[in-house]
């Protein structure tokens, strides 16, 4: 018996013959925060809908803490808190009324409802909004109500579809802290297209493109790919690429305009010092040297682009 909180097995969803999500498999354990990345229309929301039982997969299955979503939907759903992309708020109710209904529907025992509502409000910073109509709340506060609704029954798995959309920077920071807090003891899946957010909050990343999983792994792997063994050097009198390649450890040189050079070096090598020395001796006019970080965006584009190239190659 494993202790995965979420198990998606070969999830496939067809919309009129077109595959919106195809063959997505992954697992999630307790205490993990999974970031779901992908361009628009990649199938993030569709996958989340399938995970929460809002949409029946055409193929494959979902297990929440070992309970099959198709066979025992009620038991499985009781373990999930879900905030869809469009906040499901009843705007004619007050925050308290709405949260009480949410707690009741999620099987919080009648004695604990009041406490559960208080805790959820406190965690989402809604304490002073209790008596306000949801309709009259600002976008950001409505989003908080949506999140409160998803965590009110203290579920094992919290699934948030783009939780930080429309929030101001301070609210985003609060929500991220909340996600990390919940993620420490439970499992959280969030989808987003804000890449730095993934780095900040998640410890697992999945990149999905055109319905296919193109990357699935720990955030560290992605980070490593991002930092890489690269140096960015700017010089007034740049030498030829060959001169640079002679320096020990340098494996690849890319000459860029405006006297810039991107240098790749072998694992374990640290050629920065040697480069500075050579620059001084040969009067290259070095005025800037720094490790070159590929932005997460680049990694993302690379990954999604690679997949496309492979697909095109296999077709032709």
């Amino acid at each position, binding site marked *: 018996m494993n202790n995965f909180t979420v198990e998606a097995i070969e999830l496939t*969803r067809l*919309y009129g013959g077109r595959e919106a999500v195809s063959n997505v498999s992954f697992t999630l354990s307790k205490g993990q925060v999974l970031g779901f990345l992908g361009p628009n229309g990649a199938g993030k929301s*569709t996958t989340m*809908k399938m995970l*929460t*039982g*809002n*949409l*029946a997969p055409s193929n494959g299955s979902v297990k929440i803490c070992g309970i099959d979503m198709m066979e025992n*939907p*009620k*038991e499985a*759903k*009781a373990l*999930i808190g*879900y905030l*869809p992309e*469009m906040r*499901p*708020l*009843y*705007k*004619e*109710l007050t925050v308290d*009324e709405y949260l009480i*209904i*949410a707690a*009741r*529907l*999620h*099987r919080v025992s009648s004695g604990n409802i009041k406490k559960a509502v208080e805790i959820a409000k406190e965690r989402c910073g809604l304490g002073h909004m209790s008596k306000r109509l949801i309709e009259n709340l600002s976008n950001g506060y409505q989003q908080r109500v949506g999140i409160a*609704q998803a965590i009110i029954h203290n579920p094992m798995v919290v699934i948030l579809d783009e939780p930080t959309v429309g929030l101001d920077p301070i609210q985003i920071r609060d929500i991220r802290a909340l996600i990390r807090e919940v993620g420490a003891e439970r499992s959280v899946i969030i989808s987003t297209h804000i890449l730095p957010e993934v780095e900040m909050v998640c410890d697992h990343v999945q990149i999905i493109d055109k319905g296919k999983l193109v990357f699935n792994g720990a955030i560290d792997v992605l980070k490593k790919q991002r930092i890489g063994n690269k140096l960015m050097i700017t010089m007034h009198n740049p030498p030829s690429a060959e001169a640079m390649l002679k320096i020990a450890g340098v494996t690849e040189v890319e000459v860029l305009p405006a006297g810039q050079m991107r240098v790749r070096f072998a694992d374990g090598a640290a050629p920065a010092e040697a480069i500075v020395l050579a620059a001084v001796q040969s009067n290259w006019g070095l005025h800037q040297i720094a490790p070159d970080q590929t932005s997460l965006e680049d990694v993302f584009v690379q990954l999604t682009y690679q997949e496309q190239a492979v697909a095109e190659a296999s077709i032709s």
Partner: protein
Amino acid sequence: MIINVARKELKSMFASPMGWVILSLLMFAFGTYYLNGVNDYFAVMSGAMRPAERTGVTQFVGQMVYGFASFMVLFAVPLLSMRLISEERRSQTLPFLFSAPISLTEIVMGKFFGLVAFLGILVVFIGAMLCTLNIWADIDFGFILANSIGLLLMVASFSALGLYFSSLTQQPVVAAILTFVALFALMFLDRFFAGDPSNTLASLSLTRHFQSFSGGLIDTADIAYFGLFILTFLTLTVRRLDADRLRG
């Protein structure tokens, strides 16, 4: 769990002025009919000399009020039922219910019972209103009971049909119009076959099955008709919502 969904529906209905306005306007109309009925009773009965022409006050006033009520709910139910699912569909709140640990049947039943409970308030009030006749007359409680049951069943059937049409569309107004047209057709179906009362289609008419209740008769055949009517449309609604999940 059905109760929780029903409570939610009731809360939503009373959270907006809509519910209160409809309740009070209907009660006002029924009250007026009731008072007119009592006045008319004396006018008519003072002219009716022969014993055969005389009817009891319960029947006279009751038939007037319940006849009017069964006609008025034709307008009230579509207005109330239209929002049940179409509004949730439009404001995308259905995932809230779908991802809660409740089955589709429970959601549909909850919404149905929520609306029936709301309309049940009307039925109870009408019954209570007529019972006040008992202060100065000896009234026929059985007659009122049969009519109340009949009205409740009729209202429940209307609600089931309204719920189904509400699940078909995103526009509450479209749902209301469809419900109204369908109910209107079902109510007056027997009029089209007035020349041939034994016609099968005529016996599908809602009015015909209400008639025995309005005469004070509780007929199991009619109860079965209403029961099956409700069951059919609730099942269709569940299937419609399930199609959402399957086809997306």
